[in-house]
């Protein structure tokens, strides 16, 4: 007859659904007659359910941004940084509206240029901090709410000289 010390180590495999058929049979037979192990496995099952629920709640946070920042942005960022962000966004907006002289963005990471018409449709333009460096973050609209298309540019290489009329290869998109 299997005792509790043999049965309880099966909990991980049971939770991971990787018990063999004979182990499962042995487990079920033991649980049918052992209240303590039945309670233990119920707690294991409950924990597994709670972990899945917590993971799902985290996924909602990831997709909707439900969890707020610990401090509002205006309290976390230095005033000069906010001013710089406003100035850069304003500059980007002004460049985007210029007719006939599409702004030339030198992408820091991608070997392609952002078409001016894409910038016009950007849903968000902000300064993003990556480590100690600051980048201009341009978020483009996406048909799929789970897909975020974000381009990063080094603000300091933002140049206003006219670019060629050829459109760049554009942002990556998903099929």
């Amino acid at each position, binding site marked *: 007859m299997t005792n509790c010390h043999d049965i309880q180590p099966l*909990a*991980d495999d049971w*939770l*991971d659904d990787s018990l063999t058929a004979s182990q499962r049979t042995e487990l079920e037979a033991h649980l049918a007659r052992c209240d303590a192990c039945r*309670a233990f496995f*119920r*707690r*294991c099952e*409950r*924990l*597994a*359910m*709670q*972990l*899945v*629920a*917590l*993971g*799902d*709640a*985290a*996924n*909602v*946070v*990831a*997709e*909707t*941004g*439900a*969890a*707020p*920042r*610990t401090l509002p942005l205006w309290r976390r960022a230095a005033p000069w940084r906010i001013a710089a962000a406003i100035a850069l966004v304003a500059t980007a907006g002004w460049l985007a509206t210029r007719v006939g002289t599409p702004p030339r963005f030198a992408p820091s*990471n*991608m*070997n*392609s240029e952002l078409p001016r018409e894409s910038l016009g449709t950007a849903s968000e333009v902000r300064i*993003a*901090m*990556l*480590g100690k460096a600051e*980048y201009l*973050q341009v978020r483009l609209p996406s048909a799929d709410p*789970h*897909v*975020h*298309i*974000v381009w*990063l540019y080094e603000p300091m290489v933002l140049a206003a000289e006219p670019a060629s009329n050829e459109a760049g*290869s554009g942002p*990556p*998109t*998903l099929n």
Partner: protein
Amino acid sequence: MTDACGELLSPPTDLARLLTETRPRLIRLAVKMVWNRDDAEEIVQEAFRLALRDRPGSSHDSTTAVVLTSWLWRTVTNLCLNHRRRRRPELDNAALATAHARTPHNTLVATEELGRLRDAIETLPDQQRVALVLKTMEQMEYPRIAQIMQITESAVRAHVHQARQKLMRLLGGDGNES
């Protein structure tokens, strides 16, 4: 999701595509580690910057997707741990309740249980927490987790086991006989 594919990527287009496709899952992982959407997004952006700079796994202008994706998961995990050392996650139970209300489990698991569980997870050692999150919340297989954490599969199993045992001890009779 393409994280299991072994195709060769031709830079830069395929690399950008892979990053774009992987991004939502990496943000979900980072949220489970730092519990802040904005911080998670910045962590993933930093991982992408490092990927584009260092081109991990690249050889003769091509990068194996499976190498890069493992590298990305590992890098995001490490960046999250670094972030946690600099700033302890702010556990906002009101935001958790709002998010939980939008999941199918909201009638099965009380919000208070999730708050206590999250507090308990915060007390786990880093390796145990990472292994637990990848196994139970990301539903990854042990070999994949071992690849990401760069430890043996048996070590991953041990971490997950210890994490579960500790959580059950900390949570005591939660859900017992329910």
